[in-house]
């Protein structure tokens, strides 16, 4: 069922087995996976069915450190930010789940293999072809569109798939509306968790017109995005999961730099194109071996054809005595690195005194992306520029060797990660490996706020995989009941 709390009579109490708060990709996947398993679910969405109704101002906040668009980076209506996401999907790499040199906090308490079946599932939610993200299988090698790189080299080919992009609120609306197990209320904002020691008894939710309801359930799943989940937690008089002071901490977003140009063979396609019936975005990335040994970030490297520069024209790289290009032409490319940030507790969300119209304190995001982070990324660039020379792929020119000065915003992904990180023990995170808030029995999170580390891959596929896995875990609890 799909109802608006502004136009339909809102009961004083809503009840279900599981309550999911937030109707973006995370919430919709969790709710539908549960209802498909026969669980009664309430899905509570703050925005409207087709637009934000009046509540969008709730996203306004203050940013310090690197300026960050708190409002522009998310949407508040059914489908959430998927109403304007770009649709790039890719799982995190196996290495992203592991502890690596230079990390001050532990990585994920689960492995890529634990999530693998759920990634396959998530492909379906995001409407991309199922299958491994194995570049070999694409048949691109030897076509001149990507470099012919072999295993064991310092940099490897990889690729993103591209979702239509799925607008989750529209795409899954009919199933939501038709389900007799799922009751979805829009225009209803959850503002309070009513707690009794280690459990959440109910949540309080309000409309823009001031009507109020209580939602009762056995389990509560917070799926309001990587900024609103910690915000709601921090706004409680007793902050769930904050035993290590990490609620809201370790905010991460992928940051982009364009450090240089590459002179290489013409016709390379490290950008979006259609290939054998699917849309893909090939890219380069550092090999796992390189990341295991050195304190370097994982990153995606893309090339975009650009104007030749004056000192080393494409002609230079078509000299067979220099490039060994077999009679082919050469091209100048801009090189774009999208980098993995490190979890750092100094990069964090807190609340300010000012409140939004629902009475929730507004957010302050201090995005701490220090020069050291750029230093790591630039060291990777340096490896890349030597690599292309060593293997004879091309020649690299620096455009920018320094990090961005403090106060300036680099390219950003609008990916809000790490603010309720998953950990193997309560002292290093907010949730356990099953996405349950460590010190609450029935409070769960479905969001990129769970990400212990960030990799470079855009987060939504992993969000959907985690949400499917969580739903399965919750449903298990009902299966076990007599």
């Amino acid at each position, binding site marked *: 069922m799909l109802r608006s709390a502004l136009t339909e009579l809102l009961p004083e109490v809503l009840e279900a087995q599981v309550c999911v708060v937030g109707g973006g990709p995370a919430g919709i996947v969790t709710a539908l996976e549960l209802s498909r398993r026969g669980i009664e679910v309430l899905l509570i969405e703050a925005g409207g069915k087709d637009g934000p109704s009046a509540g969008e101002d709730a996203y306004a906040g203050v940013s310090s450190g690197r300026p960050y668009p708190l409002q522009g980076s998310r949407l508040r209506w059914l489908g959430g930010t998927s109403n304007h996401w770009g649709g790039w999907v890719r799982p995190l790499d196996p290495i992203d789940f592991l502890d690596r040199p230079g990390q001050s906090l532990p990585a994920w308490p689960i492995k890529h293999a634990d999530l693998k079946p759920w990634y396959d599932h998530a492909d379906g939610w995001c409407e991309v072809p199922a299958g491994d993200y194995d570049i070999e299988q694409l048949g691109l090698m030897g076509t001149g569109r990507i470099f012919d790189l072999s295993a064991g080299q310092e940099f490897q080919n990889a690729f993103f798939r591209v979702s239509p992009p799925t607008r989750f609120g529209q795409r899954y609306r009919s199933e939501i509306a038709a389900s007799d197990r799922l009751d979805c209320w829009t225009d209803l904002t959850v503002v309070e968790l009513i707690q009794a020691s280690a459990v959440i008894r109910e949540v309080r939710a309000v409309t823009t017109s001031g009507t109020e309801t209580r939602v009762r359930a056995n389990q509560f799943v917070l799926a309001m995005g990587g900024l609103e989940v910690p915000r709601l937690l921090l706004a409680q008089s007793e902050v769930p999961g904050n035993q290590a002071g990490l609620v809201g901490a370790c905010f991460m977003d992928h940051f982009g730099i364009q450090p*240089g140009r590459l*002179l290489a063979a*013409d*016709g390379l*396609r490290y*950008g*979006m*194109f*259609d290939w054998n019936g699917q*849309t893909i975005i090939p890219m380069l990335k550092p090999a796992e071996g390189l990341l295991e040994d050195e304190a370097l970030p994982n990153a995606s490297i893309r090339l*975009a*054809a*650009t*104007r*030749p520069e*004056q*000192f*080393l*024209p*494409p*002609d*230079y*790289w*078509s*000299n*067979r*005595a*220099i*490039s*060994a290009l077999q009679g082919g032409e050469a*091209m*100048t490319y801009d090189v774009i690195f999208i980098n993995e940030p490190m979890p750092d507790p100094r990069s964090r969300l807190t609340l300010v005194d000012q409140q939004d119209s629902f009475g929730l304190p507004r957010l302050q995001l201090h995005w701490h992306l220090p020069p050291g982070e750029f230093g790591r990324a630039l060291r990777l660039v340096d490896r890349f*520029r*030597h690599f292309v*020379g*060593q*293997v*004879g792929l091309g*020649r*690299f*020119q*620096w*455009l920018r060797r320094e990090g961005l000065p403090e106060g300036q915003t680099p390219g950003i992904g609008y990916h809000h990660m790490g603010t309720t990180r998953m950990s193997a023990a309560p002292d290093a995170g907010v949730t356990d490996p099953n996405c349950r808030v460590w010190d609450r029995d029935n409070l769960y999170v479905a969001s990129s706020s769970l990400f212990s580390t960030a990799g470079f891959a855009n987060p939504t596929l992993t969000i959907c995989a985690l949400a499917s896995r969580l739903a399965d875990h919750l449903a298990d609890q009902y299966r076990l009941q007599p």
Partner: protein
Amino acid sequence: MSTTRRDFVRISGLALLVGVGGLTSACQDRTDVLQTPLAHPNLADRLIAVAVSLRGVHALGQDCLNRQSQDDLTEALIERLQVTRADSLGQALVASARVDFSTGRVYEFQDWLLSETECLLAALSVAVGGGTQEEADELVYRSFLTVKGWGPSRTDQGEVFNAQSDGSGAFWIRVDGEASAAVRVVLDGVPLATTVRGGLITAAVTPVDAQRIVSSPGQYPLELLDIARNWIQSVGALVVDPVTAMATLDDGRISTVFCQPAAWGPQQAVEGVPFNEQPGGESALWIQIECAPTDAVMLLSGQRLPTTVSDGLITALVARDINPPPGGHPVELISDAAGERFMLGLLEIRAG
């Protein structure tokens, strides 16, 4: 540029080398030159032949020449090539450059990271008078893509073409095969944000540019530019059609059938002298008007004239026996079907 003593020594040494070898014959077939075995007795000459034929190395070669400490570039290069144990000169050059990168024998030129081998080779090239570098700035008109279709090609004044929700306009161009990612769509000389997906090229015109264009009727050339090669090709033109205002009738209403006339004439004549004289001796009046009904009739001093309505133009004949006296004579347009009438102005007749 001044020549240092060291440059002089090196260049003269090379000149000598060039003098003894079969440079001319080697130049004739570059493939052969690159395949020269490293043990070849004239390897030095062959190397020079390769250097001479290099393209795009002039700026680099100059820089390397100025920085080099070797007195004999050829010798220095051959020494490096022998270490590679490659089969041929071409393979040895490429291999030596790779070895340089692996062993840290690199060199920075204008922020490019290069191998010492290629630096030596570029220096040699310039020293022996090779190393051409074309000016890449000139745009070359060249048909590099086969356009199968494109749009939109027309819009009305004030109407953003293919308008998007943010006020920007958009074009699509379909071409044969796959377009290069270096292709940009150019509208009225302005490169647009362009997306290339296989044979489909799309481009967005910012809301500000879109407004500028649709506010003035005319033709705006649409072109494809390959920014990597500086090639440009014409696709067509976006036509912005003027939206003509409708005429205001004598009673103040806005006409439903007549556009506002752009011009009419003649507006002056001399008594007794035919104006705008036609082959039959009649005078003629004309009106430039974008739209008019087929039953439109022109009136001179209230008298209906034989009128012809054609595309954008209305003409009417004034018979030879009509001789308007000096003074102002109203010229009007009427449509009986629409029940509309309005005055264009006065035809001034001066005394003869």
